[in-house]
């Protein structure tokens, strides 16, 4: 018998329509799963029992009335805690926003609600999305369900874990340097960063505006497509939103990879990549070749500087984006008396965690008079070079592939005191953020410790079709049996 909480979204959506079960049943299943697992995993910061119950009732009423707002109607979905949810506390895992309740919904959230999705709650993350392990949360770390002594990756670790553990059918996170794909890889689920501008950033608490992008987590590529389709598309409230009609992506899932040109990025298959990870990725590449893909090797020479450029650009933008947290209008205000300046300065010192402070200082420095050209200016040039590398690579290849993360899930605490080691976790994912291109992580196996390995597929801007086409084929070829008790069978426990 399969627990309802382990169904795919596609399977659950069909069951809702045949009357096999109700939205209330689905919600009850994920909440029961949360009750079982949260003490150990801590995927959620807030479980919105009441709001979710109301949304599930509404979905069931809609089904009863013959109203269908799309395949997410009645499906329990979790949201990273940096997405503003009207009436539900939103903290970005920071003490400085503890207790803050947004008066508005992020555009992506509003679209999910309009589609009838049931929002289960807000998931844990690295504070302001700064981190790769979900250890930098002011409210305690999240643990990996595959091995609770290990991190789930980050910064969207809570969303990844909710999906892996079955306390949500799907989830949304944000990806600035790999914050969706890397935790997806470390928890054995599918995680996707769309083309920059495809999903509105309005209502996403900004870390680095030119890199941030909201994207979905799910247990299958098909589910990821369903989630993305619900939130993608132009939004007048985000000036960087792409003003073009968004095509449906579902057709790409069954076309196979015959003749698709797949480039393996040599720089991301060598030194610094765990041999077991490399082997799993190579095995997947071989299967793609067997399935008819034209596989070759491709070099992204600037990628060796991408990490350094990223760790200047992202902190520079964050130093300005996070300036608004000053204790004046909302959030934590220090009780220390003094001048207005003292108040702002103490509120920030008390409200921000050490990694956030480190990045604000780094970014402030990088933008300072006399240093701008050497740091921020130079980093922007590297960004241009990275884009050029990708453009050249895409002249010969339809997609590029690599490991998602250099290693599988690492032990809690291992990199917490070593920022540089932590930053290296993002080495494979950062280039796509710098270029603004879409990228996805699909689980392709486990290492000797039984920990999942993620396979990254990258495509040119707005190349979501080919990205999903290859991802779906990888999923079929690999048939990731070890993934979280996933069931698509008809045998379900109502």
């Amino acid at each position, binding site marked *: 018998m399969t627990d309802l909480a382990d169904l795919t979204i596609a399977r659950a959506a069909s069951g809702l329509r045949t009357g096999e079960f109700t939205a209330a049943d689905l919600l009850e299943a994920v909440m029961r799963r949360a009750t079982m697992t949260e003490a150990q995993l801590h995927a959620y910061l807030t479980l919105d029992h009441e709001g979710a119950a109301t949304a599930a009732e509404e979905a069931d009423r809609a089904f009863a009335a013959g109203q269908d707002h799309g395949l997410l109607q009645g499906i329990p979905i979790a949201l990273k805690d940096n997405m503003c949810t009207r009436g539900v506390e939103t903290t970005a895992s920071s003490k400085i926003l503890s207790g803050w309740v947004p008066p508005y919904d992020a555009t992506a959230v509003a679209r999910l609600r309009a589609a009838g999705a049931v929002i289960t709650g807000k998931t844990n993350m690295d504070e302001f999305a700064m981190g790769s392990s979900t250890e930098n949360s002011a409210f305690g770390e999240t643990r990996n369900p595959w091995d609770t002594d290990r991190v789930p990756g980050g910064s969207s670790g809570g969303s990844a874990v909710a999906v892996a553990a079955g306390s949500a059918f799907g989830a949304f996170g944000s990806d600035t340097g790999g914050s969706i794909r890397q935790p997806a890889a470390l928890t054995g689920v599918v995680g996707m960063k769309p083309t920059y501008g495809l999903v509105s950033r309005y209502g996403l608490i900004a870390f680095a*505006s030119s890199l941030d992008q909201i994207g979905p987590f799910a247990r299958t590529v098909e589910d990821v497509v369903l989630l993305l389709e619900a939130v993608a598309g132009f939004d007048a409230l985000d000036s960087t939103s792409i003003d073009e009609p968004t095509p449906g992506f579902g057709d790409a899932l069954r076309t196979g990879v015959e003749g698709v040109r797949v480039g393996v990025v040599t720089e991301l298959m060598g030194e610094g990549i765990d041999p077991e990870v490399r082997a799993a990725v190579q095995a997947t590449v071989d299967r793609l070749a067997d399935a008819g893909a034209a596989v070759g090797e491709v070099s992204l020479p600037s990628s060796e500087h991408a990490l350094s450029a990223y760790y200047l650009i992202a902190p520079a933008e964050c130093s300005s984006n996070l300036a608004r947290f000053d204790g004046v209008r909302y959030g934590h205000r220090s009780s220390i008396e003094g001048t207005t300046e003292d108040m702002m300065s103490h509120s920030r010192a008390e409200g921000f965690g050490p990694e956030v402070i480190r990045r604000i200082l780094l970014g402030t420095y990088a933008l300072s008079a006399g240093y701008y050209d050497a740091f921020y200016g130079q980093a922007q040039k590297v960004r241009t070079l990275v884009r050029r590398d990708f453009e050249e690579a895409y002249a010969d290849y339809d997609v590029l592939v690599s490991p998602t993360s250099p290693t599988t899930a690492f032990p809690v605490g291992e990199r917490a005191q070593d920022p540089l080691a932590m930053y290296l976790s993002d080495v494979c994912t950062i280039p796509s953020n710098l270029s603004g291109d879409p990228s996805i992580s699909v689980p392709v196996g486990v290492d000797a410790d039984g920990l999942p390995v993620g396979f990254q597929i990258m495509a040119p801007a707005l190349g979501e079709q080919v990205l999903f086409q290859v991802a779906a084929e990888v999923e079929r070829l690999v048939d990731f049996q070890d993934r979280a008790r996933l069931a698509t069978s008809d045998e379900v426990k109502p």
Partner: protein
Amino acid sequence: MKPGWEAVIGVETHVELSTRSKMFCRCPVDVDAAPNTACCPVCLALPGALPVPNEQAIEDIVKIGLALDCAINERSLFYRKNYFYPDLPKNYQISQYTFPVCEHGSIEIEAEDGPVTVGITRVHMEEDTGKSTHVGDGGGRIHDADHTLLDFNRAGVPLVEIVTEPDLRTPEQARAYGSELQRIVLALGVSDAKLEAGSMRFDVNVSVRRTGDPEFGTRTETKNVNSLRSLQRVVAFEIDRQVELIEAGGSVTQETRHWNEETAQTAAMRSKEESEDYRYFQDPDLLPLEVSEPWRDAILASLPELPADRRARYVEAGADAAAAELLADSRGLSSRFEEAVAAGANARTVAIWLTGDVVAHLRRIDGDIDATVLSGDHLAELSAMVEAGELSSSAAKDVLTATIDGEGSPRDIAEAKDLMQVSDVGEIEVAVDAVLAANADAVAKIADGDMKPMGFLIGQVMRETGGKADPKVVQQLVRAKTQG
């Protein structure tokens, strides 16, 4: 200015646009609404909120740029100017740095010492801050305040900054520049440009140097000057202060100063130990701003007549320069002037009436011209009567005020008040003959070459005709009949 010295002056002007909504959100521009009611997540800088530019504001700044003869950048960039201040919600201001919307313009001003061309370095788009009210014993100054009240209604109101080259040389020129800029902004209809309300305000940079010295001296910047009179006084004060300082062996410190209206002095603002580093960088939330050539051309075609062009046109029509300026500055006066001239009135006469008698009468009755019935047609009718000799110029003034007071059309009033002038020679001759007959002594004196009684006789004829005779005709007849 003290001989041997020259001042170098540049002005930065902030103009709040009077668009319906704010620069980067759709909140209404309503700074006088109850505090913090004209706000939303964007202008309060709530987490996650994003800016979207206001197209009308872009059109307005392009108008200003075109009126100032600027080049309009087809692609301009928004930057973040980072600094912490409680009434700056994001703790950065969205502004422009490299590639502002408008650059390299100029403006011609008329100062007492002749026309001056003032270069416009740039005209850029930014957003206003909220308003701080410091409460406590300090009389509104932050360092003595007990607490501060914040109102974010003004936060995000579109603000245009207009920066001149250091081309101004005297306090009078600075004022003339400020005044002409205000006229242009008002003519464009993009702002109410109220200096006293702060919707237009000046930051003025002043330095001095010895005449002939090619190097600039060290400048000071006096911020938030809020009247044209103060602009002139600030510059005059700074020039004197700096010259005195240097002559006494001291040197000018580069600093920001503020103007105290009561003491009529500038004083250094509390300066931070380090100079402010705004860490400008391109705003990643906003795409480059595109002003296409067709859009720019459409805006150019929609520009109203500019004040300088209007003044020139009025002078050409016959108004004198001073009257032309007064007319061009007032929508109410200029519209009536134009109507009257279009209806065939004598431009010079109507200009004098409007800027002299009409303005004086309105002041007396404390009225607004648009609240009166006075029309351009009235003025044209009155002008025609004077031209035809039907009305004396002094009677015309009486008719004019009565028209303003709503007593009727000029002709009706003149007839009702029996002010129509007699120009008929035959009718006047009868009166002249009667007066001459009754004043034989005077006539005799004139015949002897003593011209003194002439005025007396003319006066007698005017009295005989009840003041309605055309004085020119009377004079001619009396002369002819007495001098043979």
